C-alpha cells in the first residue's frame, strides 16, 4: 500500500476581504505516491507549493479539488494520523512549557503512557541529539536549532510508520544538518517511511530513494531517484538534481 496518495491535487487560498476575496492558486496539479519504505525527497523552488501539499496531507487544509490520502484514509479523519509523525516548517511551540513538558504532552496525545513514554522521550532525544539538560528549560529560551531538533524528537516519539517533515534542515548549522540527516537515515533503516521537503538538493541526491519536483504548483518530475537521475541521452551519465531543477524552472 502507498502510505501517501495524491491525485490531481489542486489548492487555492482565499485572500481576505482587504484583498477583495481574491484567490491565489498555490497548487495547480500534483499527483504522487509514497510507497512503504521510501525515503522520499520533495523539492522545488520557494513558493512552489510544498508546504501547501504537506499541510493538506496532515489535514490542516482542505484540497480545492483532487484526492489526498494519508495511510489510505481521508486526512481529515484523525485515525489517519495515528501512525504518522509530523514536523511543521518552522517549529512553533508553547514558550511557557519546558522541553520535557512539551514532549510529555505530545507523547500523551500520541497515545504513550508512563514508563513507555519516559523511555521513548529518552530514545527520541538521543536520536535527534536533544541534550537532556535542555529539557528542564522553558522553550522561550531555546535557540532556533534547539527548537528544530526538539520538533524532530516530538515527531518520532510514538515510532510512526510514516514521518512527514517540512524542511527539517532549515535553520541548522552544518553539524546540525549532519545530525538530522543521520537521524533520518537511522529511522529509514529501521523501516520508517519518510516524506520530507528540502532545498538541500545534494542531500536528496545522496540519501533518497524517491523524489518529486514541483515548480509553480505543478508536479514536473516524480519517481525513483535512480530513474530521475538517469540521462536518457547517455546511459552512463548521472544527471544532477540541480541541473534538472534549473531546466524544469526554465520550462515551467
Amino acid at each position: 500500500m502507498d502510505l501517501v496518495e495524491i491525485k490531481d491535487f489542486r489548492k487555492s487560498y482565499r485572500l481576505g476581504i482587504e484583498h477583495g476575496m481574491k484567490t491565489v492558486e498555490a497548487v495547480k496539479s500534483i499527483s504522487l505516491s509514497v510507497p512503504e519504505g521510501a525515503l522520499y525527497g520533495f523539492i522545488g523552488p520557494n513558493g512552489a507549493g510544498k508546504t501547501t501539499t504537506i499541510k493538506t496531507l496532515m489535514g490542516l487544509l482542505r484540497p480545492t479539488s483532487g484526492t489526498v490520502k494519508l495511510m489510505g484514509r481521508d486526512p481529515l479523519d484523525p485515525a489517519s494520523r495515528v501512525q504518522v509523525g509530523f514536523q511543521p516548517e518552522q517549529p512553533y511551540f508553547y514558550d511557557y512549557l519546558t522541553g520535557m513538558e512539551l514532549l510529555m504532552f505530545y507523547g500523551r496525545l500520541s497515545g504513550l503512557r508512563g514508563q513507555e513514554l519516559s523511555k521513548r522521550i529518552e530514545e527520541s532525544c538521543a536520536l535527534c541529539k536533544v541534550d537532556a539538560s535542555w529539557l528542564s528549560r522553558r522553550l522561550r529560551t531555546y535557540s532556533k536549532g534547539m527548537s528544530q531538533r526538539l520538533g524532530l524528537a516530538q515527531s518520532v516519539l510514538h515510532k510512526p510508520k510514516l514521518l512527514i517533515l517540512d524542511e527539517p534542515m532549515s535553520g541548522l548549522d552544518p553539524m546540525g544538518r549532519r545530525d538530522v540527516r543521520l537521524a533520518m537515515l537511522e529511522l529509514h533503516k529501521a523501516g520508517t517511511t519518510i516524506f520530507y521537503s528540502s532545498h538541500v538538493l545534494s542531500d536528496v541526491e545522496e540519501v533518497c530513494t524517491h523524489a518529486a519536483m514541483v515548480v509553480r504548483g505543478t508536479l514536473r518530475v516524480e519517481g525513483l531517484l535512480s530513474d530521475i537521475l538517469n540521462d536518457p541521452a547517455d546511459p552512463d551519465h548521472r544527471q544532477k538534481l540541480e541541473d534538472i531543477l534549473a531546466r524544469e524552472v526554465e520550462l515551467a
Partner: protein
Amino acid sequence: MRELMWIALSSFRETVRDKILYTLLFFVLLLFAFSMLLGEWSVFSQQKVVTDFSLGVMSLGGLAIAIFIGVGLIQKEIQRKTILTLLSKPVHRWQFLVGKYLGLVMVLVINILVMTAALWLVLKLSGFPFDPRLLLAAYTTFWEMAVITAVALFFSSFSTPVVSSLLTFAVFLASHLSGGILQYLETMKKAVGKIPGATPLPSYVEWTAKTVRWILPDLEIFNIRSVVVHGLPLPDMYLFWATAHGIGWTVFLMALSSIWFSRRDFV
C-alpha cells in the same frame, strides 16, 4: 476522551501560567477592599452594599477573564501556529476546542473559589456574618462565566481577537440590559394609571428587548444578587433552571464553534 483531558490540562496550565490572570484577580480583590470603604460611606446598610458590590465585581471579573483569556485561547494557537503540531496528532478538532474550553473552566472554578473566600474575608473584617446563600450567588456567577467564555470562544473561532472581544462585550451588555429593560417595563405597566405621569414606553422597546432576550443567552438569570442581598426567597427550581440554561447555551455554543472549526483551513 483521554485526548480531551490532556488538552484541557494543558490549557489549564497555560492559563495558570498567564500573568494576566493574576492581574485580573488582583483588580477584583482590590475592588472588594474598595467595597468596604463604599459601605462605610453609603447611607444604605453597609453589609448590603459590600455584598451587592462584590457580587457585581465577581460577574465583571468573569467578563474580563472571558475577554482577555477566553478570546486569546484559540487565537494564540492559530497565530503562533502551535495548532499545526497539535492537530497533527490523532485528535479531533472539536476535542481541541472543547479541551481548551474545559481548561479555562477549571481556572474559572478556582477563581470563583478565591473570590468567594475574599468576600468572606471582607465581610469578616467588616464584622458581618457570611450568609451561606452567597454560595448560591457564586454558583450562578460561575455559570455566567462559563457561558460568557463559550461566547468568547465562539466568536474567536472565526473572527479576530479585537472583534471577538467587542462582540463578547456587546453580548454581555445586551443580555443584561434587555433583562433590566423588561423588568422595568413590567413595573411601568403596573404603574400606568395608578401613578400620575407614568406612560407606557413605545412598543418597539419591548419588542427589541424580547427579541434580544430570545436570541442571546439570558445572563440575567444568573444574577441572583438582589435576592440574596435582600434575603428574598428564590423561586422553586430556580437553580435547576439556571443550571440548565447555562449547560444548554454552553453546549450549543461549543457545538456551533466545533462545526465552524472543523471546516476551516489552518494556514
